[in-house]
Protein backbone atom coordinates (compact mmCIF):
# COMPACT_ATOMS: atom_id res chain seq x y z
CA UNK A 1 0.00 0.00 0.00
CA UNK A 2 1.30 3.43 -0.91
CA UNK A 3 -1.09 5.33 1.33
CA UNK A 4 -2.87 3.88 4.30
CA UNK A 5 -5.12 6.06 6.45
CA UNK A 6 -6.68 5.05 9.80
CA UNK A 7 -9.75 6.96 11.05
CA UNK A 8 -8.39 10.47 10.70
CA UNK A 9 -9.69 13.56 12.49
CA UNK A 10 -8.24 17.03 12.55
CA UNK A 11 -9.40 20.00 14.54
CA UNK A 12 -8.35 23.59 14.05
CA UNK A 13 -9.43 26.47 16.25
CA UNK A 14 -11.89 24.32 18.16
CA UNK A 15 -13.81 22.96 15.19
CA UNK A 16 -13.41 19.75 13.28
CA UNK A 17 -12.19 20.33 9.73
CA UNK A 18 -11.58 16.71 8.81
CA UNK A 19 -13.20 13.48 9.86
CA UNK A 20 -12.44 10.51 7.66
CA UNK A 21 -12.99 6.77 7.83
CA UNK A 22 -10.05 4.48 7.02
CA UNK A 23 -9.00 4.17 3.38
CA UNK A 24 -5.99 3.05 1.35
CA UNK A 25 -4.52 3.81 -2.05
CA UNK A 26 -2.44 1.22 -3.86
CA UNK A 27 0.52 1.84 -6.18
CA UNK A 28 -0.63 2.85 -9.66
CA UNK A 29 -4.10 3.62 -8.40
CA UNK A 30 -4.43 7.19 -9.60
CA UNK A 31 -6.98 8.89 -7.38
CA UNK A 32 -9.10 12.00 -7.61
CA UNK A 33 -9.92 13.61 -4.27
CA UNK A 34 -13.05 15.57 -5.10
CA UNK A 35 -14.93 17.93 -2.81
CA UNK A 36 -16.21 21.50 -2.45
CA UNK A 37 -14.24 24.25 -0.73
CA UNK A 38 -14.08 23.66 3.02
CA UNK A 39 -14.35 19.91 2.70
CA UNK A 40 -10.81 19.52 4.07
CA UNK A 41 -8.98 18.52 0.87
CA UNK A 42 -5.98 20.72 1.53
CA UNK A 43 -5.87 19.68 5.18
CA UNK A 44 -5.88 16.02 4.14
CA UNK A 45 -3.08 16.61 1.66
CA UNK A 46 -1.04 18.47 4.30
CA UNK A 47 -1.50 15.56 6.70
CA UNK A 48 -0.66 12.92 4.05
CA UNK A 49 2.53 14.79 3.12
CA UNK A 50 3.54 15.38 6.73
CA UNK A 51 3.15 19.16 6.65
CA UNK A 52 0.49 18.92 9.38
CA UNK A 53 0.07 16.54 12.30
CA UNK A 54 -3.48 15.14 12.63
CA UNK A 55 -5.35 15.53 15.91
CA UNK A 56 -6.12 11.81 15.88
CA UNK A 57 -5.59 8.84 13.59
CA UNK A 58 -2.63 7.59 11.62
CA UNK A 59 -1.16 7.92 8.15
CA UNK A 60 1.24 5.38 6.63
CA UNK A 61 3.14 6.44 3.54
CA UNK A 62 4.97 3.60 1.80
CA UNK A 63 4.59 1.69 5.05
CA UNK A 64 6.11 4.39 7.25
CA UNK A 65 4.06 6.23 9.92
CA UNK A 66 4.28 9.80 8.57
CA UNK A 67 2.16 11.26 11.36
CA UNK A 68 4.37 9.84 14.11
CA UNK A 69 7.80 10.72 12.72
CA UNK A 70 9.99 13.59 13.86
CA UNK A 71 10.11 16.72 11.71
CA UNK A 72 13.44 15.78 10.15
CA UNK A 73 12.32 12.21 9.43
CA UNK A 74 9.13 13.52 7.82
CA UNK A 75 11.16 15.83 5.61
CA UNK A 76 13.26 12.84 4.64
CA UNK A 77 10.28 10.60 3.88
CA UNK A 78 8.61 13.37 1.87
CA UNK A 79 11.77 14.04 -0.09
CA UNK A 80 12.19 10.38 -1.04
CA UNK A 81 8.60 9.47 -1.85
CA UNK A 82 6.39 12.48 -2.59
CA UNK A 83 6.36 15.08 -5.36
CA UNK A 84 4.10 18.05 -4.61
CA UNK A 85 2.36 20.31 -7.15
CA UNK A 86 0.55 23.34 -5.76
CA UNK A 87 -2.11 25.56 -7.20
CA UNK A 88 -0.21 28.81 -6.90
CA UNK A 89 3.32 28.23 -5.72
CA UNK A 90 5.00 26.31 -8.46
CA UNK A 91 8.58 27.38 -9.05
CA UNK A 92 11.42 29.18 -7.31
CA UNK A 93 11.12 32.77 -8.51
CA UNK A 94 14.75 33.54 -9.27
CA UNK A 95 15.41 30.45 -11.39
CA UNK A 96 14.55 29.51 -14.96
CA UNK A 97 12.43 26.44 -15.66
CA UNK A 98 15.52 24.37 -16.39
CA UNK A 99 17.30 25.59 -13.24
CA UNK A 100 14.21 24.85 -11.14
CA UNK A 101 14.19 21.26 -12.35
CA UNK A 102 17.93 20.94 -11.88
CA UNK A 103 17.70 22.25 -8.31
CA UNK A 104 14.79 19.93 -7.51
CA UNK A 105 16.79 17.00 -8.82
CA UNK A 106 19.85 18.01 -6.84
CA UNK A 107 17.89 18.47 -3.60
CA UNK A 108 15.95 15.21 -3.91
CA UNK A 109 18.55 12.87 -5.36
CA UNK A 110 21.83 14.65 -4.56
CA UNK A 111 23.05 14.38 -8.12
CA UNK A 112 22.71 16.15 -11.46
CA UNK A 113 21.34 14.44 -14.52
CA UNK A 114 20.99 17.06 -17.24
CA UNK A 115 19.61 14.57 -19.78
CA UNK A 116 16.80 13.62 -17.39
CA UNK A 117 15.95 17.29 -16.87
CA UNK A 118 15.74 17.86 -20.63
CA UNK A 119 13.61 14.75 -21.05
CA UNK A 120 11.13 15.96 -18.43
CA UNK A 121 10.99 19.48 -19.89
CA UNK A 122 10.22 17.95 -23.27
CA UNK A 123 7.72 15.56 -21.66
CA UNK A 124 5.56 18.48 -20.45
CA UNK A 125 6.03 20.35 -23.74
CA UNK A 126 8.16 23.24 -22.47
CA UNK A 127 11.33 22.71 -24.49
CA UNK A 128 10.92 26.19 -26.02
CA UNK A 129 10.41 27.78 -22.58
CA UNK A 130 13.25 26.07 -20.71
CA UNK A 131 15.15 29.32 -20.14
CA UNK A 132 12.13 31.40 -19.14
CA UNK A 133 11.68 32.78 -15.63
CA UNK A 134 8.50 31.80 -13.73
CA UNK A 135 7.06 35.33 -14.10
CA UNK A 136 7.34 35.06 -17.88
CA UNK A 137 5.23 31.90 -18.00
CA UNK A 138 1.48 31.62 -18.50
CA UNK A 139 -0.62 29.83 -15.86
CA UNK A 140 -0.68 26.64 -17.91
CA UNK A 141 3.03 26.75 -18.65
CA UNK A 142 3.89 27.31 -15.01
CA UNK A 143 1.65 24.41 -13.98
CA UNK A 144 3.30 22.11 -16.50
CA UNK A 145 6.72 23.24 -15.29
CA UNK A 146 5.67 22.45 -11.73
CA UNK A 147 4.66 18.93 -12.78
CA UNK A 148 8.04 18.40 -14.42
CA UNK A 149 9.70 19.81 -11.26
CA UNK A 150 7.79 17.31 -9.08
CA UNK A 151 8.77 14.42 -11.38
CA UNK A 152 12.46 15.32 -11.06
CA UNK A 153 12.58 13.77 -7.61
CA UNK A 154 11.35 10.42 -9.07
CA UNK A 155 8.62 10.20 -6.42
CA UNK A 156 6.43 7.15 -5.90
CA UNK A 157 3.52 9.51 -5.19
CA UNK A 158 2.60 12.79 -6.88
CA UNK A 159 0.21 14.96 -4.90
CA UNK A 160 -1.36 17.86 -6.77
CA UNK A 161 -3.57 20.50 -5.16
CA UNK A 162 -6.04 22.14 -7.57
CA UNK A 163 -3.81 21.70 -10.63
CA UNK A 164 -6.53 22.66 -13.10
CA UNK A 165 -8.84 25.18 -11.41
CA UNK A 166 -7.05 28.20 -12.90
CA UNK A 167 -7.24 26.80 -16.43
CA UNK A 168 -9.91 26.90 -19.14
CA UNK A 169 -11.72 23.72 -20.23
CA UNK A 170 -9.31 22.76 -23.00
CA UNK A 171 -6.26 23.37 -20.90
CA UNK A 172 -7.76 21.65 -17.86
CA UNK A 173 -8.40 18.51 -19.91
CA UNK A 174 -4.92 18.65 -21.41
CA UNK A 175 -3.41 19.11 -17.94
CA UNK A 176 -5.26 16.10 -16.56
CA UNK A 177 -4.05 14.01 -19.49
CA UNK A 178 -0.51 15.26 -19.02
CA UNK A 179 -0.57 14.45 -15.30
CA UNK A 180 -1.82 10.94 -15.96
CA UNK A 181 0.55 10.26 -18.83
CA UNK A 182 3.66 11.64 -17.16
CA UNK A 183 2.89 9.90 -13.85
CA UNK A 184 2.35 6.67 -15.77
CA UNK A 185 5.60 7.00 -17.73
CA UNK A 186 7.58 7.75 -14.54
CA UNK A 187 6.00 4.98 -12.49
CA UNK A 188 4.38 7.40 -10.06
CA UNK A 189 0.92 7.28 -8.50
CA UNK A 190 -1.26 10.39 -8.73
CA UNK A 191 -3.37 11.88 -5.97
CA UNK A 192 -5.23 14.95 -7.13
CA UNK A 193 -7.22 17.15 -4.79
CA UNK A 194 -9.71 19.43 -6.53
CA UNK A 195 -13.17 20.97 -6.51
CA UNK A 196 -12.99 20.98 -10.32
CA UNK A 197 -15.85 18.73 -11.45
CA UNK A 198 -14.48 18.77 -15.00
CA UNK A 199 -11.97 16.16 -13.88
CA UNK A 200 -14.62 13.72 -12.68
CA UNK A 201 -14.47 10.41 -14.48
CA UNK A 202 -10.97 10.91 -15.88
CA UNK A 203 -9.32 8.93 -13.08
CA UNK A 204 -9.55 5.27 -12.15
CA UNK A 205 -10.70 6.13 -8.65
CA UNK A 206 -12.53 9.05 -7.06
CA UNK A 207 -12.82 9.79 -3.35
CA UNK A 208 -15.57 12.26 -2.52
CA UNK A 209 -15.02 14.50 0.47
CA UNK A 210 -17.87 16.28 2.20
CA UNK A 211 -17.63 18.92 4.93
CA UNK A 212 -17.61 17.16 8.34
CA UNK A 213 -21.02 16.84 9.96
CA UNK A 214 -19.57 18.28 13.14
CA UNK A 215 -19.88 21.65 11.43
CA UNK A 216 -23.55 21.62 12.24
CA UNK A 217 -22.84 21.37 15.93
Amino acid sequence: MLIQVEALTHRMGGRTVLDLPAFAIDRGEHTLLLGPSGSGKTTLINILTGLRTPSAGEVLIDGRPMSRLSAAERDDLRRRTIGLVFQTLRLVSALTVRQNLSLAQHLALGRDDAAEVERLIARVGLAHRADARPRQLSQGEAQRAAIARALCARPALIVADEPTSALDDANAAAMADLLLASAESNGATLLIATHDNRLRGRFPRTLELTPPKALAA
Partner: protein
Amino acid sequence: MTLAGLSLAYLRDRALNTALNVLLLTLGVATMVILVLFSAQLGERFERDARGIDLVVGAKGSPLQLILSSIYQVDVPTGNIPLSTVETLRSDPTVGAVIPLAQGDSFRGFRIVGTEPAYVEHYGGETAQGRLWQAPSEAVMGAEVARRTGAGLGQAFVGSHGMAGDGQAHEETPFRVVGVLAPTGTVLDRLILTSVESVWDVHGIAQASGHDEAHEHEHAAPAANASIRGDHGEAEVTALLVKYRSPLAAVRLPNFINRQTELQAAAPAVETARLLSLVGVGVDAARGFALLLILTSGLSIFVALYTALRQREADMALLRVMGARPVAIFGQILLEGLLLAAAGALLGVAVGHGVVALAAGAFDQLGDLGLSAFAFEPAEAWIVAGALAMGALAALIPAARVFGVDIADTLQHAS
Protein backbone atom coordinates in the same frame (compact mmCIF):
# COMPACT_ATOMS: atom_id res chain seq x y z
CA MET B 1 21.85 23.79 -9.77
CA THR B 2 22.76 23.80 -6.11
CA LEU B 3 21.66 25.98 -3.20
CA ALA B 4 24.89 27.95 -3.52
CA GLY B 5 24.01 28.52 -7.16
CA LEU B 6 20.58 29.62 -6.00
CA SER B 7 22.20 32.34 -3.87
CA LEU B 8 23.87 33.72 -6.99
CA ALA B 9 20.59 33.43 -8.90
CA TYR B 10 18.77 35.51 -6.28
CA LEU B 11 21.50 38.16 -6.42
CA ARG B 12 21.25 38.23 -10.22
CA ASP B 13 17.48 38.33 -10.02
CA ARG B 14 17.62 41.71 -8.27
CA ALA B 15 20.73 42.88 -10.11
CA LEU B 16 20.28 46.62 -9.59
CA ASN B 17 19.74 46.24 -5.88
CA THR B 18 22.77 43.93 -5.69
CA ALA B 19 24.94 46.35 -7.65
CA LEU B 20 23.96 49.28 -5.44
CA ASN B 21 24.65 47.35 -2.26
CA VAL B 22 28.03 46.22 -3.57
CA LEU B 23 28.81 49.78 -4.60
CA LEU B 24 27.92 51.13 -1.17
CA LEU B 25 30.14 48.61 0.55
CA THR B 26 32.91 49.16 -2.00
CA LEU B 27 32.98 52.87 -1.16
CA GLY B 28 33.15 52.20 2.57
CA VAL B 29 35.85 49.56 2.32
CA ALA B 30 37.86 51.59 -0.21
CA THR B 31 37.82 54.64 2.08
CA MET B 32 38.95 52.47 4.97
CA VAL B 33 41.71 50.84 2.91
CA ILE B 34 42.98 54.20 1.67
CA LEU B 35 43.17 55.47 5.24
CA VAL B 36 44.96 52.36 6.41
CA LEU B 37 47.48 52.54 3.57
CA PHE B 38 48.11 56.25 4.09
CA SER B 39 48.51 56.16 7.82
CA ALA B 40 50.47 52.89 7.95
CA GLN B 41 52.86 53.75 5.14
CA LEU B 42 53.38 57.33 6.22
CA GLY B 43 53.79 56.31 9.85
CA GLU B 44 56.24 53.58 8.93
CA ARG B 45 58.10 55.92 6.62
CA PHE B 46 58.29 58.60 9.29
CA GLU B 47 59.56 56.10 11.77
CA ARG B 48 62.13 54.54 9.44
CA ASP B 49 63.60 57.86 8.30
CA ALA B 50 63.95 59.15 11.85
CA ARG B 51 65.24 55.90 13.37
CA GLY B 52 68.55 56.24 15.18
CA ILE B 53 68.63 60.02 15.00
CA ASP B 54 68.31 61.45 18.47
CA LEU B 55 68.56 65.14 17.77
CA VAL B 56 68.66 67.55 14.87
CA VAL B 57 70.56 70.80 15.22
CA GLY B 58 69.83 73.70 12.89
CA ALA B 59 69.11 77.36 12.68
CA LYS B 60 66.45 78.94 14.88
CA GLY B 61 62.92 78.60 13.62
CA SER B 62 60.12 76.07 13.77
CA PRO B 63 61.34 72.78 15.25
CA LEU B 64 58.83 70.89 13.08
CA GLN B 65 60.20 72.61 9.98
CA LEU B 66 63.72 71.67 11.01
CA ILE B 67 62.74 68.01 11.35
CA LEU B 68 60.75 68.00 8.10
CA SER B 69 63.54 69.63 6.12
CA SER B 70 66.53 67.76 7.50
CA ILE B 71 65.17 64.26 8.18
CA TYR B 72 62.30 63.88 5.74
CA GLN B 73 63.65 66.32 3.17
CA VAL B 74 60.21 67.79 2.47
CA ASP B 75 60.19 71.32 3.90
CA VAL B 76 62.71 74.10 3.26
CA PRO B 77 65.59 74.41 5.76
CA THR B 78 65.27 76.90 8.59
CA GLY B 79 68.56 78.56 7.71
CA ASN B 80 72.29 78.00 8.09
CA ILE B 81 74.54 77.33 11.02
CA PRO B 82 78.33 77.69 11.30
CA LEU B 83 80.37 74.64 10.35
CA SER B 84 82.25 75.07 13.62
CA THR B 85 79.16 73.67 15.37
CA VAL B 86 80.11 70.25 13.99
CA GLU B 87 83.42 70.30 15.82
CA THR B 88 81.85 71.68 18.98
CA LEU B 89 79.37 68.81 19.08
CA ARG B 90 81.90 66.14 18.11
CA SER B 91 84.11 67.18 21.00
CA ASP B 92 81.24 66.54 23.40
CA PRO B 93 81.81 63.13 25.06
CA THR B 94 78.08 62.38 25.30
CA VAL B 95 77.64 62.68 21.51
CA GLY B 96 78.11 59.54 19.43
CA ALA B 97 78.01 60.82 15.88
CA VAL B 98 77.32 64.04 14.00
CA ILE B 99 76.33 64.02 10.35
CA PRO B 100 76.34 67.42 8.63
CA LEU B 101 73.83 68.25 5.89
CA ALA B 102 74.29 71.05 3.36
CA GLN B 103 71.08 71.65 1.47
CA GLY B 104 69.74 74.32 -0.83
CA ASP B 105 70.04 73.03 -4.37
CA SER B 106 68.13 70.54 -6.40
CA PHE B 107 68.15 68.78 -9.74
CA ARG B 108 64.79 68.25 -11.44
CA GLY B 109 63.07 68.50 -8.08
CA PHE B 110 65.42 66.08 -6.31
CA ARG B 111 67.46 67.59 -3.52
CA ILE B 112 71.21 67.76 -3.70
CA VAL B 113 72.54 67.18 -0.20
CA GLY B 114 76.14 67.74 0.78
CA THR B 115 77.03 65.30 3.55
CA GLU B 116 79.42 62.60 4.68
CA PRO B 117 79.40 58.85 3.83
CA ALA B 118 78.16 58.27 7.39
CA TYR B 119 74.76 59.54 6.16
CA VAL B 120 74.55 56.69 3.63
CA GLU B 121 75.71 54.18 6.23
CA HIS B 122 73.10 55.40 8.70
CA TYR B 123 70.27 54.37 6.36
CA GLY B 124 72.01 51.14 5.35
CA GLY B 125 72.59 52.41 1.80
CA GLU B 126 74.89 50.57 -0.60
CA THR B 127 76.03 51.47 -4.06
CA ALA B 128 74.30 49.44 -6.74
CA GLN B 129 76.61 50.89 -9.38
CA GLY B 130 79.87 52.80 -9.10
CA ARG B 131 81.11 54.14 -5.81
CA LEU B 132 80.50 56.91 -3.28
CA TRP B 133 81.74 60.47 -3.90
CA GLN B 134 85.39 61.22 -3.22
CA ALA B 135 86.52 64.26 -5.18
CA PRO B 136 84.58 67.54 -5.39
CA SER B 137 81.77 67.65 -7.97
CA GLU B 138 81.21 63.93 -7.71
CA ALA B 139 77.66 62.94 -6.90
CA VAL B 140 75.78 59.75 -5.99
CA MET B 141 72.15 59.31 -6.90
CA GLY B 142 69.49 57.63 -4.83
CA ALA B 143 67.68 54.72 -6.49
CA GLU B 144 64.48 56.67 -7.12
CA VAL B 145 66.36 59.67 -8.52
CA ALA B 146 68.29 57.48 -10.96
CA ARG B 147 65.10 55.71 -12.03
CA ARG B 148 63.06 58.86 -12.54
CA THR B 149 65.72 61.01 -14.21
CA GLY B 150 67.16 58.13 -16.19
CA ALA B 151 70.67 59.33 -15.32
CA GLY B 152 73.46 56.77 -15.19
CA LEU B 153 77.14 56.67 -14.27
CA GLY B 154 79.23 59.41 -15.83
CA GLN B 155 76.21 61.61 -16.45
CA ALA B 156 76.92 65.31 -15.89
CA PHE B 157 74.22 67.60 -14.52
CA VAL B 158 73.88 71.06 -13.05
CA GLY B 159 72.02 71.76 -9.86
CA SER B 160 69.70 74.69 -9.64
CA HIS B 161 69.21 76.97 -6.70
CA GLY B 162 66.27 76.20 -4.42
CA MET B 163 64.24 73.08 -3.77
CA ALA B 164 61.65 73.32 -6.51
CA GLY B 165 64.00 72.92 -9.44
CA ASP B 166 63.04 76.23 -11.03
CA GLY B 167 65.79 78.35 -9.50
CA GLN B 168 68.88 79.75 -11.12
CA ALA B 169 71.14 77.05 -12.58
CA HIS B 170 74.71 76.71 -11.34
CA GLU B 171 76.00 76.06 -14.83
CA GLU B 172 79.62 76.84 -14.10
CA THR B 173 79.93 73.97 -11.61
CA PRO B 174 78.37 70.78 -13.00
CA PHE B 175 78.20 67.53 -11.04
CA ARG B 176 79.19 64.12 -12.37
CA VAL B 177 77.41 60.93 -11.31
CA VAL B 178 79.91 58.42 -9.92
CA GLY B 179 77.50 56.09 -8.15
CA VAL B 180 73.90 54.97 -7.87
CA LEU B 181 72.54 53.61 -4.59
CA ALA B 182 70.45 50.48 -4.21
CA PRO B 183 66.88 51.12 -3.04
CA THR B 184 66.61 51.41 0.75
CA GLY B 185 62.96 52.44 1.18
CA THR B 186 64.16 55.51 3.05
CA VAL B 187 64.63 59.18 2.29
CA LEU B 188 67.98 58.23 0.71
CA ASP B 189 66.23 56.98 -2.43
CA ARG B 190 65.08 60.48 -3.33
CA LEU B 191 68.34 62.35 -2.76
CA ILE B 192 71.44 63.25 -4.73
CA LEU B 193 74.38 63.06 -2.38
CA THR B 194 77.71 64.73 -2.62
CA SER B 195 80.34 66.11 -0.29
CA VAL B 196 79.71 69.22 1.77
CA GLU B 197 82.69 70.81 0.00
CA SER B 198 81.09 70.26 -3.40
CA VAL B 199 78.07 72.24 -2.30
CA TRP B 200 80.34 75.01 -1.11
CA ASP B 201 82.10 74.99 -4.48
CA VAL B 202 78.82 75.38 -6.28
CA HIS B 203 78.03 78.40 -4.17
CA GLY B 204 81.53 79.85 -4.39
CA ILE B 205 82.43 79.66 -0.74
CA ALA B 206 85.98 80.96 -0.28
CA GLN B 207 86.10 81.74 -3.96
CA ALA B 208 85.36 84.80 -6.05
CA SER B 209 82.88 86.96 -4.16
CA GLY B 210 81.09 88.13 -7.31
CA HIS B 211 79.01 84.96 -7.29
CA ASP B 212 78.06 85.68 -3.71
CA GLU B 213 76.92 89.18 -4.49
CA ALA B 214 74.75 87.92 -7.31
CA HIS B 215 72.91 85.76 -4.81
CA GLU B 216 72.56 88.33 -2.11
CA HIS B 217 69.03 89.51 -2.96
CA GLU B 218 67.69 85.97 -3.02
CA HIS B 219 68.33 85.69 0.67
CA ALA B 220 65.68 88.16 1.65
CA ALA B 221 63.66 85.10 2.61
CA PRO B 222 66.30 82.66 3.83
CA ALA B 223 63.86 80.05 5.03
CA ALA B 224 62.28 79.82 1.61
CA ASN B 225 65.53 79.44 -0.25
CA ALA B 226 68.25 78.56 2.15
CA SER B 227 71.72 77.93 0.87
CA ILE B 228 74.91 76.95 2.54
CA ARG B 229 76.51 80.29 1.89
CA GLY B 230 76.61 82.56 4.88
CA ASP B 231 76.32 86.32 4.75
CA HIS B 232 80.02 86.66 5.36
CA GLY B 233 81.14 83.92 3.01
CA GLU B 234 82.13 81.56 5.83
CA ALA B 235 81.63 77.79 5.74
CA GLU B 236 78.17 76.82 6.89
CA VAL B 237 75.82 73.85 6.83
CA THR B 238 72.02 73.69 7.12
CA ALA B 239 71.57 71.02 9.76
CA LEU B 240 73.32 68.39 11.84
CA LEU B 241 71.94 64.93 12.58
CA VAL B 242 73.11 63.90 16.03
CA LYS B 243 73.29 60.45 17.63
CA TYR B 244 73.83 60.26 21.36
CA ARG B 245 76.51 58.15 22.93
CA SER B 246 75.14 58.47 26.44
CA PRO B 247 71.59 59.07 27.65
CA LEU B 248 73.00 61.98 29.59
CA ALA B 249 73.10 63.89 26.32
CA ALA B 250 69.30 63.86 26.09
CA VAL B 251 69.12 65.74 29.35
CA ARG B 252 71.87 68.23 28.72
CA LEU B 253 72.43 68.77 25.00
CA PRO B 254 69.06 70.22 23.81
CA ASN B 255 69.13 72.86 26.52
CA PHE B 256 72.75 73.69 25.84
CA ILE B 257 72.07 74.15 22.12
CA ASN B 258 68.84 76.07 22.50
CA ARG B 259 70.64 78.61 24.71
CA GLN B 260 72.89 79.54 21.74
CA THR B 261 71.44 82.45 19.82
CA GLU B 262 71.99 80.90 16.40
CA LEU B 263 71.00 77.33 17.05
CA GLN B 264 68.03 75.21 17.92
CA ALA B 265 67.80 71.53 18.72
CA ALA B 266 64.74 69.44 17.86
CA ALA B 267 64.05 65.82 18.77
CA PRO B 268 62.63 63.84 15.81
CA ALA B 269 60.61 61.59 18.13
CA VAL B 270 58.82 64.55 19.72
CA GLU B 271 58.16 66.45 16.51
CA THR B 272 57.10 63.39 14.54
CA ALA B 273 54.68 62.42 17.31
CA ARG B 274 53.30 65.96 17.27
CA LEU B 275 52.86 65.86 13.49
CA LEU B 276 51.21 62.45 13.55
CA SER B 277 48.83 63.52 16.31
CA LEU B 278 47.83 66.55 14.22
CA VAL B 279 47.28 64.38 11.15
CA GLY B 280 45.71 61.74 13.39
CA VAL B 281 42.65 63.86 14.17
CA GLY B 282 41.86 64.07 10.49
CA VAL B 283 42.53 60.38 9.99
CA ASP B 284 40.24 59.48 12.89
CA ALA B 285 37.44 61.63 11.51
CA ALA B 286 37.79 60.06 8.07
CA ARG B 287 37.91 56.59 9.64
CA GLY B 288 34.67 57.28 11.48
CA PHE B 289 33.11 58.35 8.22
CA ALA B 290 34.31 55.17 6.48
CA LEU B 291 32.94 53.05 9.31
CA LEU B 292 29.59 54.81 8.90
CA LEU B 293 29.64 53.98 5.18
CA ILE B 294 30.29 50.32 5.93
CA LEU B 295 27.53 50.19 8.54
CA THR B 296 25.15 51.89 6.10
CA SER B 297 25.90 49.26 3.49
CA GLY B 298 25.33 46.57 6.12
CA LEU B 299 21.95 48.09 6.89
CA SER B 300 21.22 48.28 3.18
CA ILE B 301 22.01 44.59 2.70
CA PHE B 302 19.76 43.80 5.65
CA VAL B 303 16.91 45.89 4.20
CA ALA B 304 17.33 44.30 0.78
CA LEU B 305 17.16 40.77 2.18
CA TYR B 306 14.40 41.63 4.62
CA THR B 307 12.07 43.29 2.12
CA ALA B 308 12.48 40.43 -0.31
CA LEU B 309 11.36 38.14 2.49
CA ARG B 310 7.63 38.20 1.75
CA GLN B 311 8.24 36.63 -1.62
CA ARG B 312 11.10 34.63 -0.21
CA GLU B 313 8.98 32.97 2.48
CA ALA B 314 6.97 31.35 -0.29
CA ASP B 315 10.19 30.30 -1.99
CA MET B 316 11.50 28.99 1.34
CA ALA B 317 8.38 26.84 1.78
CA LEU B 318 8.70 25.54 -1.76
CA LEU B 319 12.38 24.75 -1.24
CA ARG B 320 11.47 22.85 1.91
CA VAL B 321 8.89 20.86 -0.05
CA MET B 322 11.50 20.24 -2.73
CA GLY B 323 13.58 18.57 -0.03
CA ALA B 324 15.94 21.28 1.24
CA ARG B 325 16.68 21.10 4.96
CA PRO B 326 16.00 24.25 6.99
CA VAL B 327 19.68 24.57 7.87
CA ALA B 328 20.60 24.39 4.19
CA ILE B 329 18.15 27.19 3.34
CA PHE B 330 19.46 29.22 6.27
CA GLY B 331 22.96 28.80 4.86
CA GLN B 332 21.76 29.71 1.39
CA ILE B 333 20.42 33.09 2.56
CA LEU B 334 23.48 33.68 4.72
CA LEU B 335 25.58 33.01 1.65
CA GLU B 336 23.74 35.79 -0.21
CA GLY B 337 24.80 38.28 2.46
CA LEU B 338 28.34 36.89 2.43
CA LEU B 339 28.62 37.03 -1.37
CA LEU B 340 27.45 40.65 -1.38
CA ALA B 341 29.92 41.50 1.37
CA ALA B 342 32.76 39.61 -0.31
CA ALA B 343 32.16 41.36 -3.63
CA GLY B 344 32.03 44.75 -1.91
CA ALA B 345 35.07 44.04 0.25
CA LEU B 346 37.28 42.76 -2.56
CA LEU B 347 36.22 45.54 -4.93
CA GLY B 348 36.80 48.01 -2.10
CA VAL B 349 40.35 46.76 -1.54
CA ALA B 350 41.01 46.94 -5.29
CA VAL B 351 39.55 50.45 -5.58
CA GLY B 352 41.44 51.56 -2.46
CA HIS B 353 44.77 50.46 -3.88
CA GLY B 354 43.82 51.92 -7.26
CA VAL B 355 43.10 55.30 -5.73
CA VAL B 356 46.40 55.22 -3.83
CA ALA B 357 48.21 54.34 -7.06
CA LEU B 358 46.50 57.22 -8.87
CA ALA B 359 47.18 59.61 -6.00
CA ALA B 360 50.86 58.61 -5.77
CA GLY B 361 51.15 59.11 -9.51
CA ALA B 362 49.29 62.41 -9.63
CA PHE B 363 50.86 64.12 -6.63
CA ASP B 364 54.66 64.09 -6.48
CA GLN B 365 54.63 64.85 -2.76
CA LEU B 366 52.83 61.58 -2.06
CA GLY B 367 55.24 59.69 -4.31
CA ASP B 368 58.11 61.45 -2.52
CA LEU B 369 56.77 60.25 0.80
CA GLY B 370 57.14 56.74 -0.51
CA LEU B 371 53.42 55.97 -0.82
CA SER B 372 53.08 52.64 -2.59
CA ALA B 373 49.87 51.08 -3.89
CA PHE B 374 51.36 47.60 -3.99
CA ALA B 375 52.07 47.16 -0.32
CA PHE B 376 49.36 45.32 1.61
CA GLU B 377 48.72 45.99 5.27
CA PRO B 378 47.57 43.30 7.75
CA ALA B 379 44.79 45.71 8.73
CA GLU B 380 43.24 45.20 5.30
CA ALA B 381 42.58 41.56 6.14
CA TRP B 382 40.69 42.79 9.20
CA ILE B 383 38.66 45.20 7.09
CA VAL B 384 37.70 42.37 4.72
CA ALA B 385 36.91 40.07 7.64
CA GLY B 386 34.84 42.81 9.23
CA ALA B 387 32.88 43.38 6.02
CA LEU B 388 32.21 39.63 5.67
CA ALA B 389 31.06 39.40 9.29
CA MET B 390 28.76 42.35 8.67
CA GLY B 391 27.34 40.69 5.54
CA ALA B 392 26.65 37.51 7.50
CA LEU B 393 25.12 39.51 10.36
CA ALA B 394 22.86 41.45 7.98
CA ALA B 395 21.59 38.16 6.53
CA LEU B 396 21.21 36.47 9.91
CA ILE B 397 17.75 37.76 10.84
CA PRO B 398 16.19 37.24 7.39
CA ALA B 399 17.81 33.80 7.19
CA ALA B 400 16.61 32.77 10.66
CA ARG B 401 13.03 33.22 9.44
CA VAL B 402 13.29 29.87 7.69
CA PHE B 403 13.08 28.11 11.04
CA GLY B 404 9.76 29.78 11.79
CA VAL B 405 8.11 29.22 8.43
CA ASP B 406 5.02 26.99 8.59
CA ILE B 407 5.11 25.34 5.18
CA ALA B 408 1.44 24.46 5.06
CA ASP B 409 0.34 27.99 6.04
CA THR B 410 2.74 29.69 3.67
CA LEU B 411 1.75 27.47 0.76
CA GLN B 412 -1.92 28.13 1.41
CA HIS B 413 -1.52 31.89 1.48
CA ALA B 414 1.03 32.23 -1.27
CA SER B 415 -0.29 34.19 -4.20
